């Protein structure tokens, strides 16, 4: 928009075309406002109150934030979340890219293979988590059964605090890597074949092709996948809730689980909002940092 737009810019929305535009947008905007924008601000407002949802709220200022920073379980949940982000993001992006590169070649059964990798993504979190909870059982689990056949010792996949989060990351990888594969695959097919041809004529090695053509061409989708992946990993909840319930002894309790317990189980809505806002701030900073990092690359 610029100054030439007209004298009564303030009332521009009243002009006929605009009104019709807003009428078309209204159903969406109303829902967006009622169920997204408004709750976002209500959540912030709530975080300054001590409120159990059933009796009137009491203003506590920054009290909830103060409590939060003094709470051992908050810090451990934050660490578990960050740990999950660290161990899940790289495999999800890296393996996603690797599978996409493999599937981008032509071979028999390519379509079926693509479908197979995407299939788990269609399942709901409770189905995926329940399947994996049984696969990873110590005494009856499929995984330990086959490990046993290979002569390996049984592991407590979900019962050992050092393994439990890794097991959850494994299940998450199986579940959602297909989505990243699809994004990468679509991007790979967009890369003009001439680029590779020209490079090959110049004698480029496969690694050089990947490093100097494929990767730069994937820049946008890499940014997209990385950012959405990190956001999704920060919000991990369903898999944890069904597979371990936050256990063994709280070693897989993540921030969203902590928020859920504090808010809906112990009716500390204000406190839960405060923690939710902290999570939001962390994710906001992470996303902004990545954005900056990747777009700087672009400018080179």
């Amino acid at each position, binding site marked *: 928009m610029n100054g030439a737009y007209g004298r009564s810019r303030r009332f521009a929305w009243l002009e006929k075309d605009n009104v019709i535009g807003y009428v078309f947008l209204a159903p969406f905007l109303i829902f967006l406002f009622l169920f997204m924008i408004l709750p976002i601000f209500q959540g912030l407002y709530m975080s300054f109150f001590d409120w*159990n*949802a*059933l009796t009137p709220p009491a203003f506590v200022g920054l009290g909830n934030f103060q409590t939060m920073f003094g709470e051992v379980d908050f810090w451990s949940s934050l660490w578990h979340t960050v740990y999950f982000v660290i161990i899940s993001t790289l495999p999800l992006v890296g393996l996603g890219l690797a599978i996409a590169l493999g599937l981008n070649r032509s071979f028999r059964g390519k379509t079926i293979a693509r479908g197979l990798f995407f299939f788990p993504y269609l399942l709901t979190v409770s189905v995926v988590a329940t399947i994996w909870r*049984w696969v990873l059982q110590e*005494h009856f689990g499929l995984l330990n059964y086959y490990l046993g056949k290979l002569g390996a010792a049984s592991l407590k996949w979900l019962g050992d605090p050092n393994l439990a989060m890794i097991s959850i990351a494994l299940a998450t990888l199986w579940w959602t890597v297909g989505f990243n594969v699809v994004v990468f695959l679509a991007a790979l097919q967009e890369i003009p074949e001439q680029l590779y041809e020209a490079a090959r004529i110049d004698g480029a090695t496969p690694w050089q092709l990947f490093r100097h053509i494929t990767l730069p061409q994937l820049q946008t989708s890499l940014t997209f996948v990385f950012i959405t992946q990190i956001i999704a990993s920060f919000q991990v909840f369903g898999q944890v809730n069904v597979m371990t319930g936050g*256990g063994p*002894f709280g070693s897989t309790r993540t921030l969203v689980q902590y928020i859920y317990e504090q808010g809906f189980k112990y009716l500390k809505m204000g406190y839960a909002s405060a923690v939710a806002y902290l999570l939001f701030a962390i994710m906001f900073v992470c996303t902004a940092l990545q954005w900056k990092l990747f777009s700087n690359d672009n400018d080179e």
Partner: protein
Amino acid sequence: MKKSLIVAALLCAMALLLAPQTFATTKLVYWDLFSGGDADFMTAMVKEFNRTHPDIFVDEVPNKWDDYYNHLLTALVAKKGPDVCIIHTSNLPAFASKKVLLPLDGPIAKYNFPAKDFGAKLWNGGKYQGKQVAIPLDVHPFILYYNKELLARAGFMKDDKPQIPANPEEFASFLKTIRAKTGKFPLTLETNGFGGYRSWYSLLNQAGGSLMSANGKKMTVNSETALKTLTWWTNLLKENGINSMNYDESVALFSQGQSALHINGVWVTGGFEKQNGLKFGAMPFPNLFGSKDAWGNSHNFVIPNPAKADPNRIKATLTFIDWMTANSDKWALAGHIPPRYSVLQGEKYKSMPYRPGYAAQMESIAYLPSNVHMLEIEQFMADEIAAAYSGAKTPAQALATIEQKSNRVLK
């Protein structure tokens, strides 16, 4: 959650359309949290009630257990929701303290509700700060299941009765003998999950220990008794290789005949009796430290939204609760122990398989203390006790942590 609300709303709407609307009918919307086998028994009972009471129509809205309390809370916030619903004893204080449950002492006296027929412990479990806010439908304590074949092989069955020792030392060597003679797990139970603390909590109560002071102001969990029972129990679990076992697995091992004993709530009875070839029995929790106490919880009927309740509907609700509890032998099919003596002593209940064998446990229920913060403290307990079992913390560290975290919440 949003989805389940919509589904519930649709169900309500459908039920409204289908309900036979005669003029004098009092309609009661009833929410519960039963799923699977339990839900079938519950729905059949409500149907039977509606058939035999033309003047009352109870509209059952079954909810999924895992988001039931969120659902109920949301409804209460909006001052909506059912006329009557189910709440666990452990969840009562959280709701009762916010004054969203109708005190029932008045209506109970007015309509001559048969309070005396109920087990005293269960009836008192329905009180909050001395006021009756709930009426128990059942009690579901921890009990002991035993595999008859494995116990016989180890030499502990006499005249079809299991010989279970009643003190810690003998119990430990009893498990050792079973292990040696059968090569199976002598005992299985959940030890690394949320319910892991329940077996120890039973022992704590047996030994006369307690979780918090009677006035609910301070934790008493970091005691000699607590340390003694927790240390003994942890060592025993470790010795038998069951100190880090999850729920599903403990149940599967017993139903596959891989375990001689199994400690769990009465709710698994129905599943075990469907297991082909499993010859098992069920009895009260073993008395190891001088009393028969065992962890337990109850489903209770409550009347939410006191401001909304009108006398006519309160009367109909009490008729419904009276009938449901008087017919709780039908509910006992799900494994739960009926709350009323008239049912427990009735021929129908006494002739049921397995269930009468553990009914006596209702006299020695160790509920969690009635405290507004109990759910949070329960989580601390669940986390710390499982950490002690697994060896990640010493029993003393675990107890100190429960005490410290809980006292912060209580103050």
